[in-house]
């Protein structure tokens, strides 16, 4: 299983969400995607997208302006 890293620190709406989606499209089933970012709204909306896409949310860590989210496809 591969691990894909996405760095969207400094990016604002809607880029973190879009980059998450692109990474999920690249990933194989079972791969883990780790996203690091600083946009507060994205920390809330990426888990919403994970639910909508029926993926597995492994972790949401850090502060609203400095977070790490881990997803399994």
């Amino acid at each position, binding site marked *: 299983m591969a691990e894909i890293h996405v760095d969207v620190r*400094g*990016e*604002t*709406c*809607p*880029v973190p*969400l*879009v980059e*998450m*989606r*692109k990474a999920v*499209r690249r990933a194989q089933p079972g791969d883990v995607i780790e996203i690091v970012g600083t946009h507060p709204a994205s920390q809330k*909306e990426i888990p*919403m*997208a994970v639910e*909508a*896409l029926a993926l597995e949310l492994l972790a949401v860590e850090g502060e609203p302006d400095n977070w790490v989210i881990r997803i399994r496809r």
Partner: protein
Amino acid sequence: MADRTTIVVASGDMDKLYSALIIANGSLSMGMEVSLYFTFWGLERLKKGGLEKGALSKMHMLGLGKLFMNWRMRKANVASLQRLLNDFKELGGKIIACEMTMEIMGVTRDSLQEDLIDEYGAVGAYIHDARQSNITLFI
């Protein structure tokens, strides 16, 4: 079938095009399909070199307001319209150009960014997508 968002992009104003593309890309990112139906002044933005030419819908002030807004957006690191449009296409979004607008405004296919356009259509094309959509907007 996946959930769908369908947006009529009738305005060519910069801020409204941002709204349309951000909602479109948000929808794609959350697993929906998206159709953008470009008509009237919105279609002007699909002309070659036309994407960034829209005025601000309010406080444009002969371009001063737009300069200020662009400066603020650069400071906030907001993505360009070109990047949003590239992301839209990469995530599988569909663009429909209104044929009646092309006819009445004298817009030819070769004056448009044809590589972005999936379909040339009339109101039937919009209704076909809109009636299967969970979200429809007119911007």
